[in-house]
């Protein structure tokens, strides 16, 4: 049992995040939320797209809100890729879920949507989930063959 605890602490210390890496996770949250909100704002200007003329979605690309949203999402993409280079997908996704809290607050104060008590409960649950995952190791340590595809795995067997 002690050995297990020691191993867990060792892997946690090995995979602990530096302030710079927390900053990368924060930029995933900020860029993602602002980008999504900009897109929503832009699509409200563009209006509903007819299901028989889906090509009209490309016309939305000339809307300034949509363009700014795309730039934010490019920032999101680069910080997301950086985050995935040092942490697991199942760590990065819940850890960056704070974006939904940020997005709900943006919807409330910028798009003037209503936030009910139920929605606040949702925000609390997301925050609890983020706290849970942030307390564990950020990365699964693999032997090199485990992620290099089925061929490598067959080669081992």
């Amino acid at each position, binding site marked *: 049992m002690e050995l297990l605890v020691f191993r867990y602490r060792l892997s946690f210390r090995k995979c602990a995040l530096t302030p710079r890496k927390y900053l990368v996770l924060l930029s995933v949250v900020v860029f993602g939320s602002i980008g999504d909100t900009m897109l929503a704002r832009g699509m409200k200007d563009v209006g509903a797209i007819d299901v028989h003329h889906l090509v009209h*979605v490309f016309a939305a690309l000339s809307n300034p809100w949509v363009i700014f949203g795309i730039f934010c999402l490019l920032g999101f993409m680069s910080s997301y890729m*950086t985050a995935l*280079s040092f942490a697991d*997908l199942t760590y990065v*996704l819940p850890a960056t879920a704070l974006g939904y809290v940020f997005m709900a607050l943006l919807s409330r104060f910028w798009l003037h949507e209503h936030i009910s008590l139920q929605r606040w409960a949702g*925000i609390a649950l*997301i925050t609890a*989930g983020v706290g849970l995952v942030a307390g564990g190791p950020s990365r699964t340590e693999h032997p090199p063959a485990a992620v290099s595809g089925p061929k490598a795995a067959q080669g081992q067997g």
Partner: protein
Amino acid sequence: MRNLYTWICIFSVVCSAATGDVFIALAMRRIGDLGLFRRKHGFFAMMTRVLSSGALFAGIFFMAMAFFSNLVGLSWADLSLMGPASAALTFVTNAIGAKFFLHENVDKRRWLATLFVCCGVLLLTRS
């Protein structure tokens, strides 16, 4: 009818986003920590290494599909429905994809965190 179209869009966003996430995570894991790589080999070597990854482009292709489905969905529904509904389902599909395709150690703590986030996101959509 518009409701049905919205949920078709959400389904399309979930499938393409989960596939894209798994591909991108696979590509980035093969490359390794980008900060370390840049310090060791320089910025251009890092960019070349990133841009020569086939899995990354497959991931970006699926993410682009998710983006356009999301854009079409946003023209029919509010961000407060589209965003959380697609995200809640993407969390679960991603956790499954990460466990079976990326062989990540999805322990109880991570399942619980995923469940919490998923329920939280669902609560956001129901209000």
